[in-house]
């Protein structure tokens, strides 16, 4: 049994890096007619507070390897299976499925620490920030020495506008963990929101030491410089961030603000035009992502996301959108079309390395599809890999034409 418990601990560790995005806090501020209301799933009608605490002292030694055999022997049936489902669902962004599994675990083991930790991350991804905070607090109530695993709590506090608490939590987490760019970025943003721009800049520079091309950190740095009145430096920083993330309207916005501030109105107006195009595209993207939040298996929406990203020519956005499309398709025809779109998108952009990776992925995912091999022969030839092209042609002949 102890090995099963250990596998749960491994699962928990695997989830530690999530959630990572601090910028998805935009909430729908109004309700637009024309859609069809989806019923709120039952699992979201429940609050985490519906699972009252019981015997929290049971888990005091959960993270002590010496105690795991003893703890594992007392676990209620189904707990580990529930956690495995939750883990798998989280990885596939099937958050409702994951939450259902976590609820089933919490019904039988109301204070099970891994369940609350994963629930925190899951609620966060579902944009239920108050629930995420509650889940992390329930985790810390039974595992107070495991604060290093709870930087997501800082994200939740930040998103709820509780910046001072967020800053204090990030600092507490940093005391218990080695280094994490995401935690330092969170800390810097909390400090920025508290008006502590100098400290924020220091922490952001630490993030950029480890990742000098991090577009998000570069954009925030430009914002901070602008706030501090270093307008020319802010402009330079914003332009650098825009180079690394050409689909993101924010650096262009900061550049526009800086140019207006500098009285360079003509240039500012050019940036404004660019920003308007990017912002419209980003708004469309946010709308699609919102619709995918509860029901991610919608290939037609994922395909719209890819089209949106391709229009920006932003490699990061395109990769993320293609990944989303890949995850939303199941083996068979829809998977094949997703693979084809991925390879052809990268080929169209002249991104040879990405096209090669996509072709390899296509070989794995669509190995039983003759049409896939027929296309792969063409793709590999286009990529200059005649050996693979020949092999693909052979597989196509072996499988027979569709």
């Amino acid at each position, binding site marked *: 049994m102890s090995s099963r418990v250990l596998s749960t601990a491994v699962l928990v560790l695997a989830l530690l890096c999530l959630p990572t995005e601090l910028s998805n806090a935009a909430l729908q501020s109004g*309700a637009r007619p024309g859609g069809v*209301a989806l019923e709120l799933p039952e699992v979201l009608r429940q609050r985490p507070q519906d699972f009252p605490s019981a015997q929290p002292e049971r888990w005091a030694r959960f993270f002590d390897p010496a105690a795991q055999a003893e703890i594992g022997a007392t676990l209620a049936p189904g707990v580990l299976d529930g956690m495995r489902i939750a883990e798998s669902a989280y990885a596939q962004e099937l958050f409702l499925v994951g939450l259902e599994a976590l609820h089933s675990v919490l019904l039988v083991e109301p204070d099970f620490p891994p369940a609350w930790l994963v629930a925190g991350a899951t609620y966060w991804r579902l944009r239920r920030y108050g629930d995420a905070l509650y889940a992390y607090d329930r985790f810390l109530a039974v595992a107070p020495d495991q604060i290093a695993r709870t930087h997501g709590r800082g994200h939740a506090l930040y998103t709820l506008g509780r910046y001072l608490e967020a800053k204090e939590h990030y600092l507490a987490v940093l005391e218990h963990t080695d280094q994490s760019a995401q935690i330092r970025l969170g800390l810097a943003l909390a400090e920025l929101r508290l008006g502590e721009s100098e400290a924020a800049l220091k922490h952001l520079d630490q993030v950029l030491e480890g990742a000098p091309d991090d577009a998000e950190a570069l954009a925030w740095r430009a914002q901070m410089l602008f*706030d501090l009145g270093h307008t020319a430096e802010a402009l330079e920083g914003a332009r650098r961030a825009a180079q690394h993330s050409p689909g993101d309207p924010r650096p262009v916005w900061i550049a526009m603000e800086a140019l207006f501030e*500098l009285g360079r109105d003509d240039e500012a107006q050019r940036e*404004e035009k660019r920003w308007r195009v990017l912002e419209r595209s980003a708004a469309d993207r946010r709308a699609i992502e919102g619709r995918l939040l509860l029901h991610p298996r919608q290939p037609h929406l994922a395909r719209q996301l890819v089209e949106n990203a391709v229009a920006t020519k932003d490699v990061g956005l395109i990769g993320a959108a293609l990944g989303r499309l890949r995850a939303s398709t199941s083996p068979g025809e829809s998977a094949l079309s997703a693979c084809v779109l991925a390879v052809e998108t990268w080929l169209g952009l002249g991104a040879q390395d990405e096209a090669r990776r996509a072709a390899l992925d296509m070989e794995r995912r669509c190995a039983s599809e003759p049409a896939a091999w027929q296309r792969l022969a063409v793709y590999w030839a286009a990529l200059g890999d005649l050996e693979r092209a020949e092999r693909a042609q052979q597989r196509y002949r072996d499988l027979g034409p569709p």
Partner: protein
Amino acid sequence: MRTLASLLIPLLTTGVQDAPKPLFRAAPFEVAGAADASLESVPRHAVRTTSGSPEKNWIIEVNGGGLLLGDFDGEGSIDLLLVEGSTVERVAEDLPGEPPRVFLNDGAGDFRLAGGAWEIAAGRWGTGGALGDVNGDGTLDAVVLEWGPDRLLINDGGKGFVERTKDSGLGTGGWSTSAAFLDADQDGVLDLFVVRYLEFDFATIPSRASRECVWKGHPVMCGPEGLTPSADAFYRGNGDGTFHDASDTFGLGAVEPGYGLGVVTVDIDRDGRTDLYVSNDSTPNHLWRNLGEGKFEEVGLALGVALDANGREQAGMGIAVGDADGDGHADLFVTNFSGEHNAFYRSSTRGARVRYSDRSHASRLAGPSVPRLGWGTQMADFDQDGELDLVVINGHVYPQAGAPGTDTMYAQPAQVFAGRGAGRFDEHPSAFGAAPPIVGRASAFADLDGDGDLDGFAIEVDGAVWRYENVGASGHALLVELGSVRSLGARVEVWVQERAWWREVSTAGGFQSALPASAHFGIGAAQKVDRVRIQWPSGAVSEVLDVPVRRGFARVRIEEPAVSKEEPR
């Protein structure tokens, strides 16, 4: 050995001593009956307003009514004109909504419902309004806004209102929300800017029951997103109490309409011409720079007040204006939706011109606003310590707020942010004492009881009108009243020893409200105001020296001089 009680009592006492004193005493607004009734024998009753059904199936039911504060009867105290809506059923039967009501103040803050000539016929669905002397007779006239034709009420010498909508040049339909009087073309006659929300029609907009519109998984009323925004309107005054539509000359056609909710007047660039700032729900806010002769240009984006610091549009509701950092230029504050932050646009002259940037976070105004949905707001020195404070009235639009996963509530506490100077604020931990959270909407603050500090009203949608009596102002106050129709846009400057403050006179209250044309200053512990200077829009200047402060309050009334004209600003 010390007993447990002896240990606990000092702790408890310390706690009590440390608890900040409330700034306002909140209570439902209660009045006696009509003017001709015996006040002693008529029981007092709480004033409530109507705005559709509590279920809020349609967006028209959400925004609530308006509060217009001014001295209507000329007796020297602040009266109230309360505007309210209707119900879906009344509209369906083509019946009028609830009539606007006038409450006259006895000078000590006791209001009575005014009858007789003060009674106003009901329109279709009242929203907000504006106050100004449109015919130059020295009394305060009103525009009442509606979902339906806007209405002009002329003050009959302080004896009552007479409706003069017909032939006034106003009265086009649509859904108006807020309005501002200003002398845009500097001809000595008041002009009117009307803010409009969206094209509303029960026949074409789905109700909540259609389940077409969802917020965080909960079916809610539809809009504003996805509905057609209405263009604002500008009317130039003819000087005889009538207007003509001058929206084209103004320049309104040059921009995409927004879902307009609030407006303030302010001379942004200190060129002597009154500019306009309009908050738009879910669309960029507009800043209209006055070019003279009734022409304006929209410069919101160029001057940094259209969007938030990330370049995102917010759900602009109410607006407050004032010089929070004492740099001589007005700062702007806009209340927004839950999940967003209220935006504090701080002016700066560090660049090539006066420009703004969203400094909500550095000002410490952002974080506490994230779970709230703000409406009425005002920047004034409520505690009279010499620094401008902010009051924000909150309440969600969706009764579904509070359901699982919404991270907010329908009824929400009002907030006061105490100014700390240099554009920074701290939230007052108990500004309204034990007042319950309300589904707040419009608000307006002025000296209602003649003691010099600022009291206020707020509308609770589907509930009471709340009255806030200032009980916590610690400093002294100066109230400057300007006795002229041409006072709107005047700049009032005050010096006390080494400190100086200024205000710009306006009656635009930010969201469906109007304020008295006066300037209130908190002056700390000062016993004397060294100098009061008025720069009138005409270019004339008035000055009063050595104003004594008695019992913590000084009040001066200044008429516009015919001479001592300086260079135009």
